[in-house]
């Protein structure tokens, strides 16, 4: 018990950058995302007896953050993204970090996705979770996550007018071709 505490804190700290990146990608605003991360830390701390050391701390924290976000939204009736704030944020955003214009455009496109698709594509595409883990975090079926990721990807391609497979190297082109061969 004596030892469990400091290492709980250490593991929580280690997962914090990714947890914060998840919150900011979901919400689009640093200030609101950081408030949510703070609430998540408090919740996690209070529930630390429920956490089994050695299991996936990151997934556990992501689940708490997500539940917290949706319960706050239900209470306030507010949407995840608020477009007024987004503009202010993009003006005030650290230009060094989001300097690349195409990344700005990408962020705007990401903000236009339905929340369930956005979280699915972030969890699988950026946070490094498997489909199974993402499904557990979101409390839905693996197939649902897959179709959300897929729809999110297609929508982003449309919004950013990226033609998709054609632009990619030989590895990426051959895999959709094979998939089509299997499908027909």
């Amino acid at each position, binding site marked *: 018990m004596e030892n469990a505490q400091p290492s709980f804190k250490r593991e929580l700290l280690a997962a914090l950058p990714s947890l914060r990146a998840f919150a900011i*990608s979901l919400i689009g605003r640093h200030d609101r995302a950081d408030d949510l991360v703070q609430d998540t830390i408090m919740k996690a701390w209070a529930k630390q007896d429920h956490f089994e050391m050695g299991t996936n701390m990151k997934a556990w924290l992501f689940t708490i953050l997500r539940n917290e976000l949706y319960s706050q939204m239900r209470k306030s009736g507010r949407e995840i993204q608020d477009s007024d704030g987004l503009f202010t944020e993009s003006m005030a955003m650290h230009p060094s970090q989001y300097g*690349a214009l195409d990344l700005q455009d990408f962020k705007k496109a990401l903000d236009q996705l339905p929340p369930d698709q956005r979280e699915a594509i972030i969890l699988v595409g950026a946070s490094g979770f498997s489909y199974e883990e993402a499904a557990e975090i979101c409390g839905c079926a693996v197939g649902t996550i897959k179709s959300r990721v897929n729809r999110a990807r297609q929508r982003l391609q449309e919004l950013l007018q990226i033609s998709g497979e054609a632009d*990619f190297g030989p590895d990426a082109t051959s895999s*959709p071709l094979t998939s089509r061969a299997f499908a027909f």
Partner: protein
Amino acid sequence: MLSMARKRQQAKSDELMTVQKNEELDQQRLELRASDILDPNNQIGVKLRSLYAAVQEEVIPDRFLDLLEKLDEAEMMASAKMAE
């Protein structure tokens, strides 16, 4: 060319024969397409990860370190009291 089309038609009607087979194929397609996002050549995936990495590489704000410190202290005080 014609035989290709015929083959395809044949394959398609085969596909319709069993619903289950259809579902399996759908699943297969979904899986292959969804996994594209992790392909290093997929532009959407690459951009998504750059955006995420930009935030992830930011220094952890002091408010979180302070908060954890306070939580830790409070807990140590509480357990010290318990031990008394």
